């Protein structure tokens, strides 16, 4: 079992390896001789970026963790304009951030292949909404490729670059959580010489202001060109290698299965034991190739489209059928749910209903038994890790505001401050949104209150935002709040790493995948922008943190407190690797009064309640030694054990 990153660079064509969908895409990009890669991490896309970060130098690929998706998009786009093969990756909501550049530049096209990998998250396993990127593809008239397995993801990535170059057009490679985070057997292909030698490729930008300047006079010419390209690509897709018709040719019923839905449809048909069905496997949910559709529909009496989320393929097929005067039943979202992710159960249920046959399992009975079992299963939502510095920051904020503030927060691990007992997150919308929302709340809460009234009824507003998020989209919001004389406290939870997506570096870290970049301290930015109060605290010192918060709250204007302490999960991981030890804490049974402050106000997952003794206890295997409990316990019951843990 070799290291994954080694496998991604293996010069062993034909070798079968087990890769994560995202890693398979990285390999596909290398096989396609990619030159430039830029992205901001976002689950479920992050492992693609992380894999590129590790292999880039060796493969001679320029790679960067950009500060947000828009600038990542621009970095890669400019490289593609310069004739290089370039890629950017993001999660679905990341495309919203890049959308301005995306929709404005699509008409300009590219010279080198340009692939935009977007990972959707149906069922929202770690996302704030459920949006279907295929709709963006249709909106922008950019083709969308969607793989049905990790191996196909690799193959499709290579094809995506070729397609993009052939039509000088953008290409979206869309995955969902279950492709990006699926592992499967992948057969390695050939690596190009330049990648094997690790030679950096250089591009050449040929000036053409009529093409690259989107003043109205130029932009007006773009739209018809885009439409022309997409129709040509539709033609192309009739014969592309990831679209095909399979199954019984004489069948009277057909199923259209785009992307990953194909895997579920295959599984469902297998389980149902159904054979007399024709299947259109679609690797291109947009645009749907009409020639292939025509061939597929020939002789069919009814059709079912099994697709995840929006009826993107369904609408295209129905429009096509209507225009052709084809009057057969075309089912889709009437049988397949439009919300949440596809499952085999959903595919089986839809197909069984479509064919008028029984499902192979009594789901009613299963659900009844399962619901009964769930009655005794306690909830276990994710939580801030033991020793997470954010817990201490939130604890100090709550204490300093006497729990009477309004707490807008942002996207990151710290969103978990929402959960009891901290309850320190009142709003979360999108990256960087905490500061904008805080400013808006301040205006709304205080409006035209008189000085006197304000003193009496003032609502304290404390925004929390992470370091990476601060640089992602927090900056313009901070400028806005300072410029417009807002009166809010912004606590930047700086754990020196983009923790939630897997410890990627950012400007506060200063680190790049290729060594040190230039570190930008958050406090310097806040000061330069003109914040009225700026201070840095170590949240592991809860008393000092609390005192600084108190002081910041007394200041009129925008206060910025940078609460800096390295991510505990990251730190412990590093220490484990180095074989280092850390102190662990225990509860002194003579000192613990059972007041439960540690459980009801602090909520470290390593602390549990001993029901028999009515005292708190620490699970030693979960204690990461921050000592926060020792500082918040009014009775000094938490004490460090001399002997550390490995």
């Amino acid at each position, binding site marked *: *079992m070799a290291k994954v990153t080694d496998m991604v660079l293996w010069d062993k064509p034909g070798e*079968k*390896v*087990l890769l994560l969908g995202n890693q398979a895409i990285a390999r596909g990009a290398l096989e396609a001789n990619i030159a430039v890669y830029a992205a901001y991490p976002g*689950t*479920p896309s*992050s492992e693609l970026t992380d894999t590129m970060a590790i292999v880039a130098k060796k493969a001679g690929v320029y790679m960067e963790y950009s500060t947000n998706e828009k600038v990542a998009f621009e970095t890669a786009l400019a490289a593609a304009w310069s004739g290089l093969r370039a890629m950017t990756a993001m999660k679905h909501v990341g495309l919203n951030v890049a959308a301005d550049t995306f929709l404005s530049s699509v008409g300009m096209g590219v010279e080198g292949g340009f692939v935009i990998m977007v990972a959707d998250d149906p069922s929202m*396993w*770690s996302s704030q909404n459920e949006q279907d990127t295929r709709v963006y593809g249709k909106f922008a008239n950019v083709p969308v490729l969607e793989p049905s397995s990790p191996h196909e993801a690799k193959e499709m990535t290579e094809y995506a670059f070729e397609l993009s170059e052939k039509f000088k057009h953008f290409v979206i490679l869309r995955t969902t959580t*279950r492709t990006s*985070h*699926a*592992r*499967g*057997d992948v057969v390695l292909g050939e690596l190009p010489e330049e990648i094997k030698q690790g030679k950096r490729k250089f591009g050449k930008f040929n000036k053409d202001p009529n093409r690259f300047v989107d003043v109205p006079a130029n932009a007006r010419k773009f739209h018809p060109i885009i439409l022309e390209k997409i129709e040509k690509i539709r033609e192309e897709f009739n014969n592309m290698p990831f679209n095909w018709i399979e199954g019984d040719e004489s069948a009277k019923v057909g199923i259209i299965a785009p992307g990953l839905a194909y*895997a*579920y449809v*295959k*599984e469902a048909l*297998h*389980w149902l034991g159904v054979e007399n069905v024709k299947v259109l496997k679609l690797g291109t949910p947009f645009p749907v190739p009409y020639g292939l559709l025509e061939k597929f529909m020939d002789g069919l009496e009814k059709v079912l489209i099994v697709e995840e989320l929006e009826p993107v393929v369904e609408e295209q097929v129905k429009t096509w059928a209507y225009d052709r005067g084809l009057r057969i039943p075309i089912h889709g979202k009437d049988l397949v749910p439009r919300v949440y992710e596809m*499952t*085999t*159960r959903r595919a089986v249920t839809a197909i069984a209903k479509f064919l008028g046959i029984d499902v192979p*399992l009594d*789901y009613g009975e*299963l*659900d009844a*038994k*399962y619901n*009964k*079992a*769930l009655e*005794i*299963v*306690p*909830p*276990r*939502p*994710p*939580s*801030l*890790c033991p020793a997470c510095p954010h817990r201490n920051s939130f604890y100090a904020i709550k204490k300093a505001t006497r729990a009477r503030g309004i707490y807008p927060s942002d996207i990151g*691990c710290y*969103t*978990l401050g929402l959960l*009891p*007992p901290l309850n320190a997150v009142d709003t979360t919308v999108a990256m960087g949104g905490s500061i904008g929302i805080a400013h808006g709340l301040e205006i709304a809460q205080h409006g035209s209150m008189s000085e006197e009234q304000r003193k009496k009824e003032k609502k304290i507003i404390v925004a929390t935002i992470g370091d990476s998020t601060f640089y992602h989209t927090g900056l313009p919001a901070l400028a806005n709040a300072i410029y417009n004389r807002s009166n809010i406290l912004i606590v930047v939870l700086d754990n020196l790493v983009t923790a*939630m*997506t*897997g410890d990627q570096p950012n400007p506060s870290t200063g680190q790049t995948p290729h060594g040190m970049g230039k570190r930008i301290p958050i406090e310097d930015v806040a000061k330069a922008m003109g914040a009225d109060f700026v201070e840095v605290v170590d949240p592991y010192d809860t008393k000092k943190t609390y005192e600084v918060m108190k002081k910041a709250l007394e200041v009129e204007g925008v206060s910025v407190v940078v609460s800096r302490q390295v991510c505990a*999960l990251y730190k412990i991981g590093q220490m484990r690797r180095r074989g280092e030890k850390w102190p662990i804490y225990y509860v002194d049974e003579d000192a613990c009064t059972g007041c439960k402050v540690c459980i*009801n106000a602090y*909520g470290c997952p390593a602390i*549990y*309640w001993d029901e028999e003794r009515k005292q708190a206890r620490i*699970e030693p*295997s*979960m204690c990461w030694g921050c000592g926060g409990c020792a500082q918040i316990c009014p009775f000094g019951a938490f004490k460090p054990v001399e002997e550390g843990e*490995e």
Partner: protein
Amino acid sequence: MKVKEYNIVIAGVGGQGVLTAANILGWAALHAGYKVRMGEVHGMSQRFGSVVSYVRFGEEVYGSMVPEGKGDVILGFEPVEALRYINHLRQGGMVVVNTKPIVPVQVSMGKARYPEIDEIKKIVEEDFKAKWIGFNAEELAIKAGHVVTTNTVLIGALTQIPEFPLDAEHVREVIRLSVPPKAVDINMKAFDLGIEAAKEILGL
């Protein structure tokens, strides 16, 4: 004899090594010549929340998730987590489970109750007609040398269940190659302790 389809559901708490265990089984299956599909949880869900990973292999596997009612075995790293995904188990399947609980904060706060192990076992055996192979794997891991080998203990036990399609020695080899050199010995011991525990329960 090759199996057409074999489905393992691995359930636990973020940080327990669920993903590592899944990876080991996936590689063992790949080496055994099977087509492999695995589905896993990343990002926010991993932070001490409930985590599930699927390992599927055989001649005919497509999706990365084990469908409801199709799991051959649930490998539970934690007792209530095994129960949380019990809907994935087929009738007559197996539950191989570490009986050492990790109590959620909500329970400590008095907002939820943690069930008795026997209540869980009863549901598994009576409602789901599944075989329960429960033991304190954490204790055995500590005995082997370190608590982090709990997942190795459980994998060892898993290889002993009837009709398990991967060869135990084959799985052991993948573990040997995938753990850091200095951790090989305690992992091998943990694997053996898991095998013994399962054999004893199964009366082998």
